[in-house]
């Protein structure tokens, strides 16, 4: 808690990038373990075994509690006092727990050993464990590891760590061949929409990471162009680049503008003309415009603040400001990757208040002074803010709901319009 925030100038090039205020203090953000909650729904033959404390198990349960209707494909190996005593013992314990999991779920194709704060502090070597166990189960189950500890990752960075762990597993794309790889967990319906658009544009082959099943890993090589569907996958993108792939610079596919810009980056890489892009996307854009028009009415001129949570804040703020006419009061992000956010930052209005990191109490002070019409925040804060008369939107919903692409643009706007509509409706 360093007290005074530090100011940082936009960029060396001196263009009109917004000034970022950095804060350090109490944070109200999930740790990377929370990513398991959507990753295990997406990768249907994967199982996530967290090696951690009772707190980790409780966190996963609380974060996922509302959403899990079937038996989860995740679990926690809870460390006890005797595990902390000697590390040799710990590995034997881990082997036993893994055997238990695999016996219970013989359908598992890939098992992730997920590191946590305590396993990191006691320096439990999960990479080694994964290697050892891979030998034991070779040919049957793939065993990988990554860390999603709160010491290293916030919320959505857990997905980044997980996908990065997959990169070395991807088969080599033969040289001379090219492919498009879309990074980031997308609901199946959105993935299919994008796949159709790419096909119509003549771009292909197109692969998605994470895949629905780990038996269908996409190939990767120097002919691979990467598009990020989610803005929090910097590490994964860099790991792909290290294998020769090239990251396409683009805004993120939220709203019409973002989706079009995102597709354009691919068409340019494939040498597809602007005319083709326009022709292919025109019907979807027209639909999206019709859908958006309705919500724009309730959003236009309304003031919105984002508390830092999912790293989706900047692209969403851009969409709400440019396509829905909202006014940005403060845009907080837990972590700002300037390279991945470059295209988005250019689209933000001049003078926007952009904060990185968090000092919760000070941020809440500002929020109370600003009194925006809508605040995007985590689950722990929503009800207390509502009780202060501030309308809120849970940021976690934006990670689970299909919100990417043209056909979801109106759905995305609706997520923000609904709390406002409700506020206008209620007489209690």
């Amino acid at each position, binding site marked *: 808690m360093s007290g005074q925030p530090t100011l940082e100038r936009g960029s060396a090039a001196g263009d009109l990038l917004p000034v970022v205020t950095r804060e350090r203090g109490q944070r109200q953000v999930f740790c990377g373990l929370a990513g398991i909650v959507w990753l295990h729904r997406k990768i249907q033959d994967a199982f996530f075994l967290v090696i951690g404390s009772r707190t980790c198990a409780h*966190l996963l349960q609380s974060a996922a509690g509302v959403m899990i209707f079937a038996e989860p494909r995740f679990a926690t190996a809870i460390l006890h006092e005797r595990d902390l005593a000697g590390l040799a013992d710990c590995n034997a314990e881990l082997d036993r727990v893994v055997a238990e999991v695999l016996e219970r779920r013989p359908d598992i194709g890939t098992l992730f050993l997920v590191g946590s704060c305590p396993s990191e502090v006691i320096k439990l070597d999960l990479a080694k464990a994964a290697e050892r166990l891979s030998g034991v189960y070779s040919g049957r189950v793939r065993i990988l590891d990554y860390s999603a500890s709160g010491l290293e990752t916030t919320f959505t960075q857990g997905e980044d760590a997980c996908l990065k762990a997959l990169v070395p597993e991807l088969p080599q794309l033969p040289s001379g061949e090219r492919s498009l790889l879309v990074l980031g967990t997308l609901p199946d319906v959105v993935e299919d929409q994008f796949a159709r658009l790419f096909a119509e544009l003549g771009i292909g082959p197109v692969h998605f990471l994470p895949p629905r099943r780990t038996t269908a890993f996409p190939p990767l090589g120097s002919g691979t162009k990467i598009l990020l569907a989610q803005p929090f996958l910097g590490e994964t993108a860099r790991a792909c680049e290290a294998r020769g792939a090239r990251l396409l610079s683009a805004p993120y596919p939220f709203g019409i503008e973002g989706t079009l810009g995102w597709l354009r980056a691919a068409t340019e890489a494939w040498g597809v003309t602007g005319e083709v892009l326009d022709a292919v996307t025109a019907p979807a854009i027209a639909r999206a415009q019709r859908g958006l028009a309705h919500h724009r009415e309730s959003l236009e001129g309304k003031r919105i603040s984002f508390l830092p949570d999912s790293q989706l804040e900047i692209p969403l703020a851009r969409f709400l400001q440019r396509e829905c006419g909202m006014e940005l009061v403060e845009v907080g992000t837990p972590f700002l990757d300037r390279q991945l956010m470059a295209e988005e930052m250019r689209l933000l209005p001049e003078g926007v208040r952009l904060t990185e990191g968090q000092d919760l109490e000070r941020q809440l002070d500002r929020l109370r002074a600003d009194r925006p019409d809508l605040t995007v925040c985590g*689950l722990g804060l929503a009800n207390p803010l509502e009780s202060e008369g501030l309308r809120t939107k849970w940021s976690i919903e934006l990670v689970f709901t299909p919100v990417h692409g043209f056909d979801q643009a109106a759905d995305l706007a609706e997520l923000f319009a609904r709390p406002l509509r409700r506020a206008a409706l209620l007489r209690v």
Partner: protein
Amino acid sequence: MQLTLWTYEGPPHIGAMRVVASMQGVHLVLHAPQGDTYADLLFTMIERRGTRPPVSYTTFQARELGSDTAELVKNCVGEAFERFKPRVLLVGEACTAELIQDQPGALARGMGLPVPVLSLELPAYARKECWGANETFYQLVRGLLKPRVPEAGRHPEPRPADRCPRANLLGPTALGFRCRDDVEEVTRLLASVGVDVHVVAPLGATPEDLLRIPEADFNVCLYPETADQTCLWLERMFGQPTVKTVPIGIGATRDFLDEVGRIAGIDVTDAKSPISSRMPWYSRSVDSTYLTGKRVFIFADATHAVAAARMCAEELGFMVVGIGTYAREFARDVRECAKRYGVEPLITDDYLEVEKRAAELQPELMLGTQMERHIAKRLGIPCAVISAPVHVQDFPARYAPQMGFEGANVMFDTWVHPLMMGLEEHLITMFREDFEFHDAATPSHLGSRVGASRPTEAGSQAVAESADSPMQADASTIIWAAEAEQELKKIPFFVRGKARRNTERFAAEQGIQTITVETLYDAKAHFGR
């Protein structure tokens, strides 16, 4: 290491949070990494509280390890004190902080704050949530009252003849099961025999209230899981007797009144059968005959499990086929109870073991926690929740206590509802061969019950569509392209029927013969507002 899918209890610092979140004027500084702040949502989302729990987290990160985490603690304590001005400050650490051994309690005490600073030892790798709540409450009461403990051998002064007996209600906390309503019900119950409630703690109490605890004549240990240590200590140090019966169920409520009467020296006869107590008659009524011998499996905290078993056996005529608890500290009570009903007790905090036992027993009703709700759903067994851990639906808007006579009424309703109604069950037995009343028919009130009786998705869709006869003529001329049909299947099942009908209506209006994926999304854009 222990493998868990779900857990019954959080770590001990969650127990500490339950105590401080229950109180006013107390603040907890928790040395914990970023991410541990998830705990706030238990209170604000699951319990639907309008305020954040009074907890400040140090939220340390990897780059700070080994350098300035101690400084972080001091800053956090200082800022929390300045901002929240608590009258008592508690300092504790979560599991990761325990490993890095900063001793935040000692650091905070060294800061010379002008209020009591209590340091909590919450061993995260050995203990759990209920223990943490019990310990925190005990440390708070002991920390504040220690200077006031009378000399050994000095007995409390007898109650003046002209003053009502006074009782403290100890143990209700945030995130407990129906604590708020239980406090109201027990207060009413005590008033009916002329006993005043003096202090309720921790729920709603201030540090000053805790200082007034010794002024009461006796303590009611309402939730032993959180208050038994405190009650024991008060009994030892201040000579305050403890009422140990927990008034859950008709019989237990009468026993509770008897115990209060004995300790307070008052007559309780008239209060033991109030007209508000409808449960005994409902249970005797002929419609309840079908409840006889229903096989029930109970798994909960010890207090609610033991109380539920007695109600099942004595007040509802069920058969207890299994009982267990996740609260190891109170395992003895549950073992004794199991012996009374001739069943094998299950003492475990392993959700998978409970699931296994439930699958073996195949009970007709499960009484348990949110976890048993998951288990029961998976196994297709009716279930009612009787204990923490709970979910948002277990904090109902209406008054729904578990304790006292009204509590028994509430439980009659909530335990019987998941079962088939008496008449319905009779009919099924009587018309066993009838096509409508067969064993596999879904009970009338459980439209979406999981199990063998659940209609297939295709079946229900066919029904939904044939019911939609006005659309039939138009829809029959419209064809779904295979790709569009595939796309439709990706839409969640609970809105798929609506999407299908809307798309067909849209196609009919537009004169479209073949529904393509484009049509599907055009219709979505058309209706989607």
